C-alpha cells in the first residue's frame, strides 16, 4: 500500500465540493468589501447574518474533523518506528478515535443548526499539511498550528452558544475543545521529545508551523482585535503547551496575514472589475 496519500484522492461522495484557498484570496469583491464598515467581525448572535455565518463555520469545522482523522490515520501508517515511535502512533490512533466522534458530533450539530453535509465548500488544506514527509512537521503543522486554530474556533463557537443561550452548541463545543487541547498538547510534547537533540529539525518544524499559521489566518480570520471573527484562546493554548512568546508571535502572524490580504485585494482592484463593464 502506498505511503503519503494524495489529497485529491481522498474519498468523498457527491455532496462534497472542493475549493482552494486562492479562490477566497482572489475573490474580486475583496477590495470593495474592505471599504465597508461592518463593525466588529466577532461572531455574535446579534451580528448580521449570524445564523448563516455560524453554520458556515460549523461546516468548516466538520470537514476539518474529517481531515484531522485522515491525517492522524496516515501518520500511524506512513512511517516506520525509527521515524515515528510506537507511542507516537498510539497517540495518533487515539486522536483518530476522538476525531471520529468529532465528525459525528459535527454532523449532528450541523443538523441542529439547520445545515447539512456539503452545504458549503471543502478546502483540503488541513490534510495537505498532514502530507509532510517528516512526522515532526506534521505534528507542528497539524497538531500545533491547525488544531491550535481549532482551539480558538471551538472556544469562539462555545461563547457564541453561551451568548445565544443555545445549550446544545455550547455543550458540544466544550467537549470537543477539551479533546483538541489534548491533541495540541500531543504536538507540543512530541515536538520536544523528537527534536531534543536535533535543533535544526526543530527549527524546520517550527518554521513549517508558522507557514501553516499564516496561511490559515486567512487575511485576519483569527487575531485579538475587533476585526477578527475568532480570537486567540490563550488559556486553553497555555494548557496545550504554548508559551506567551509563541502566542504573541501568532498575533503578529495574523496581523501580517491581514495586511497581505488587504494589499492583494488592493492590487486586484487596480486591475478593474472581474465581470461586465
Amino acid at each position: 500500500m502506498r505511503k503519503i496519500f494524495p489529497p485529491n484522492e481522498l474519498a468523498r461522495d457527491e455532496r462534497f465540493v472542493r475549493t482552494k484557498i486562492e479562490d477566497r484570496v482572489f475573490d474580486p469583491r475583496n477590495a470593495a468589501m474592505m471599504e465597508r464598515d461592518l463593525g466588529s467581525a466577532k461572531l455574535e448572535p446579534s451580528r448580521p447574518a449570524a445564523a448563516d455565518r455560524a453554520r458556515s463555520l460549523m461546516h468548516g469545522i466538520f470537514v476539518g474533523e474529517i481531515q484531522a482523522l485522515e491525517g492522524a490515520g496516515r501518520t500511524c501508517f506512513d512511517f516506520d518506528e525509527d521515524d515515528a515511535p510506537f507511542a507516537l502512533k498510539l497517540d495518533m490512533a487515539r486522536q483518530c478515535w476522538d476525531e471520529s466522534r468529532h465528525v459525528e458530533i459535527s454532523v449532528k450539530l450541523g443538523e441542529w443548526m439547520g445545515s447539512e453535509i456539503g452545504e458549503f465548500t471543502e478546502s483540503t488544506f488541513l490534510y495537505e499539511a498532514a502530507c509532510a514527509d517528516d512526522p515532526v512537521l506534521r505534528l507542528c503543522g497539524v497538531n500545533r498550528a491547525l488544531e491550535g486554530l481549532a482551539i480558538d474556533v471551538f472556544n469562539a463557537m462555545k461563547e457564541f452558544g453561551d451568548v445565544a443561550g443555545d445549550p446544545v452548541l455550547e455543550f458540544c463545543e466544550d467537549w470537543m475543545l477539551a479533546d483538541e487541547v489534548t491533541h495540541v498538547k500531543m504536538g507540543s510534547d512530541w515536538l520536544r521529545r523528537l527534536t531534543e537533540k536535533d535543533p535544526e529539525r526543530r527549527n524546520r518544524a517550527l518554521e513549517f508551523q508558522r507557514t501553516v499559521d499564516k496561511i490559515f489566518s486567512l487575511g485576519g480570520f483569527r487575531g485579538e482585535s475587533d476585526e477578527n471573527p475568532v480570537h486567540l484562546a490563550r488559556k486553553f493554548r497555555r494548557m496545550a503547551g504554548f508559551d506567551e512568546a509563541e502566542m504573541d508571535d501568532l498575533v503578529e502572524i495574523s496581523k501580517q496575514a491581514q495586511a497581505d490580504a488587504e494589499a492583494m485585494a488592493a492590487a486586484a482592484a487596480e486591475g478593474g472589475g472581474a465581470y461586465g463593464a
Partner: protein
Amino acid sequence: MPAITVAPDPFTLVPYDASTIAQLTAEAAALVGFPDDVAVTLEVDEVLPHPLTGTFVAVGPEGLDIWMSGANFEDPKRPLKFQPELALSELVRALLRAADRLRPEFSGAPTDEDLTDRQRAAWDVWTEGRAHRLGVPATRPDRLLYHYRLHHGFNDVADEVFRRLWDADALTWPEIDEACAETDAADTRERPKKTALRKEQLRAPRPSA
C-alpha cells in the same frame, strides 16, 4: 406585471445578469399576487459575499424599493455563482413582506431598518411559511428555526410561537408584535447591553471611504 428595474446593470464584480434577475422578480410577483400598479426597484449589493445575507424592503409613493445582498443569490458551494432557485425564493419572500406593508393592517409596522431582530425574525417565519405553501423551493423550516431561535430564545414557548407563525394564513402587524411579546416574556437570556449591530450595517461605507 409591475414595472421592474434592477441595478446594477451590468454587474461588475459578480457574474449576475440583471435581466435574469428582473425575470425572476416578475415570476415571484406573479406567484405572490403582487399588485401590478406598484413599480419595483431592486438594488443588488454585489460587494457582499456569502454568508453576509440581508434584505430590506421599503414601500413609498414611488413604489417598492428592495435592497438585497448579492449573497442572497449566491450558491454557498460555488462562490460567485448565481443560483436561480435560491434567488426566486428570496424574491418571493421580499415581495410577500412588501405586499404585507401595502395592507392597512401593517400601517403600524416600523420600517425594515427599525424592526428589532426579534420582530424581523418573527415576520420572516410567517413569510417563509407562506412561501413554502406556495410551493417555492429553497424554503426550509429547520434552517429558519435556528435563525429564529437566536433572536427569540431556545425554549418551548419560542418553538410553539414559531409553529403558529409558520402555519398562519393571515396575520396583522399587532398580532406579530404580540407573538414577539410572548417570546420576550419567556426569554431569560441576558440581553446585550450595547445596541445590537444591525443588518443595515452591511450597506455602510467606512467613514474614511
